[in-house]
């Protein structure tokens, strides 16, 4: 038992964090919006140069052969930066699905039309889309679908309704693919929310150290301190849940913990982004300050990949059916075996 990041994992998180810190600041985000482009080509090139899009693919397929813990760390960094490009959905959700059925990963990104989400993010810039027809998963070229943009409050969430016709040739698998994709999607949304929550606190700490009212920095007022400290406590107790969920093999506990991670990270992001608005005063409400990038993304991801109600129901299902207790914290009984032991 060693519930610690390895040195390699720590280094990966730091490297990706540093990259995005340098090329995905609030100013970079504003510049992208002003340009009208969907993506920052230079930033995406740097992300590709690090091998991140294929990080979960096996080395034999040109990937890095990393696991979900590493992917979660990258997603935390993407959340912290409010990254506009679809690295998480492509690398964390689409690529493993393709790998699982032995498909090649296209050169561009693959968008994911999971039935749990009403719209498909980043469909316009994708080379292909994973789409659902009943239980079936189809891999459909971008050119074969029609897109209708659906405006999100987050200008970087490029959502689309996808009109398309299923054909036997594009079918790549069944329900199991979608089920696994949901677990990854919810987990990585949680990881991004965790990064967003920390970013909201970081922005707020920087601001309240400087901003003076009543003759002193507002960060010296107990009310401001306690807003931010309470948000940080939520972050501290969401992080190990996200990491544990990313490390567990598939099981009833793992499903419940993915949902727990999503709920805890969403709550932390909600608390932190509201605290950020509050301690920034009117500044937190303006376009010029980075708070809103965090707030909008947190609002969207909090409801995407399963709403809080959806995830609370999954937690309740485990809680009311599986054996509980202090010896069960890491007790990831494989699903089949658990079913057997329940029957016994």
């Amino acid at each position, binding site marked *: 038992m060693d519930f610690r990041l390895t040195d390699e994992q720590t280094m990966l998180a730091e490297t990706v964090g540093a990259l995005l810190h340098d090329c995905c600041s609030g100013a970079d985000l504003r510049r992208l919006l002003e340009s009208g482009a969907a993506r920052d080509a230079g930033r995406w090139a740097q992300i590709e140069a690090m091998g991140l899009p294929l990080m979960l693919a096996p080395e034999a397929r040109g990937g890095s052969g990393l696991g979900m813990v590493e992917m979660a760390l990258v997603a935390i960094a993407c959340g912290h930066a409010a990254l506009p490009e679809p690295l998480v959905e492509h690398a964390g959700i689409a690529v493993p699905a393709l790998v699982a059925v032995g498909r090649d990963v296209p050169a561009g990104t693959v968008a994911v039309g999971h039935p749990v989400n009403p719209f498909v993010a980043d469909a316009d810039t994708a080379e292909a889309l994973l789409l659902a027809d009943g239980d079936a998963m189809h891999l459909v070229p971008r050119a074969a679908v029609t897109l209708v943009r659906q405006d999100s409050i987050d200008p970087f969430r490029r959502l689309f309704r996808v009109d398309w016709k299923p054909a036997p040739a594009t079918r790549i698998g069944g329900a199991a693919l979608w089920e696994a994709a949901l677990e990854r999607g919810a987990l990585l949304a949680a990881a991004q929310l965790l990064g967003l929550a920390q970013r909201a606190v970081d922005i707020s700490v920087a601001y309240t150290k400087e901003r003076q*009212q009543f003759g002193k920095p507002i960060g010296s007022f107990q009310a401001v301190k306690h807003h931010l400290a309470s948000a940080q406590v939520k972050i501290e107790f969401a992080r190990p849940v996200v990491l544990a969920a990313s490390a567990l093999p598939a099981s009833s506990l793992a499903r419940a913990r993915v949902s727990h991670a999503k709920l805890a990270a969403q709550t932390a992001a909600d608390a932190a982004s509201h605290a950020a608005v509050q301690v920034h005063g009117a500044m937190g409400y303006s376009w010029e300050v980075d708070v809103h990038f965090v707030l909008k993304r947190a609002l969207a991801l909090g409801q995407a990949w399963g709403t809080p*109600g959806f995830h609370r129901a999954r937690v309740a299902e485990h809680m009311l059916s599986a054996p509980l207790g202090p010896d069960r914290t890491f007790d990831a009984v494989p699903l089949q075996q658990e079913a057997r032991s329940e029957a016994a």
Partner: protein
Amino acid sequence: MDIRYTPEEQAFRAEVRRWMAAHVPAQPLPDFDSTREGFEAHRQWERTLHAGGWGMVTWPVEYGGRGLDLIRWLIFEEEYYRAGAPGRVNQNGIFLLGPTLIEYGTPEQKARFLPAMAAGDHIWAQAWSEPGAGSDLAGVRSTAVRDGDDYVLSGHKIWSSRAVHADWAFGLFRAPGSERHKGLSLILFPLDAAGVTVRPIQRFDGKPVFAELFLDNVRVPATNRLGEEGQGWAVCMSTAGFERGLMLRSPARFQVAAAKLVDLYRARAGAADPALGAAVAQAWMDADAYALSIYATASRLMAGGAIGPETSTNKIFWSELDLDLHKTALALLGAEAELTAAAPDASADVGDWLDGYVFSLAGPVYAGANEIQRNIIAERMLGLPR
């Protein structure tokens, strides 16, 4: 205590309801912050209201009002929101400045400003905050230098709502060399005066809801000062200030929103988290409690009572209820919550809930941040030491 409406009050409600039914625009007006067109459409609505005698029913008749009491004001507001009438583009004038003018204005000032305000001819912006003076309003640095019969105003105001399109603004200015709460005067100035530069500030949804005002030797007559020279702080914090607090956020606004939330819950309850039912009921109860509290205050004021720290408890309560109500709405909308009104597949009202949420986010911040209000309650209402 008699919580029945009198026949006269019921007749008044019926009169408002009839007028609103006949006059409220069938289609919502374009919003008053985004475009000049929307702004002017709302000014036109103010004129329509005024023509009907509904500009400000509590004001004296000679200034364009009806001289009615606060219960009738509440009834008016209930019918106004019930009818879905447009937002009041002149709220900074009629709700914030108006009562102060009535208490502190000279007869000349009242005659000059109130009828034009009631008629929508002057739309007002507020100019409270400065870059260094937000929660700490006594930190304003803009100056008013007396020069004969004029003041010369200089400084930098910020977060000035409505100022992008408005006609006039009011704010605090200090005598050069004065400090903190002393030496401040409340001064009214036209936004098209020489030396005034208005720079829009985008709210985070991109709407130019605020502006910065740069004042560079703006000359206004000394008759634009409201109250005594150097008494601006007291004027702003006066009883009139408290009545402003009473009027700025009508309970009816939240009761209408709560009723819509109940409809949304009914429509979505099948798919909703069972925990959300409790949140919906809480929103409805909170809106109701706010209304009852305002009725109690209005009854007391009508009987000659003075208003106390209710403005602080009210401020906290309505701002938190508004935020919670909209968070509950977004939770009911689930994955649709992020959609703006422009999204082609968004269900009806989804964009309105999102707009309402964005607006509600600012509630705990503006009109005196809730942290400041809690300090006021603790110190002035409970008597805790500073």
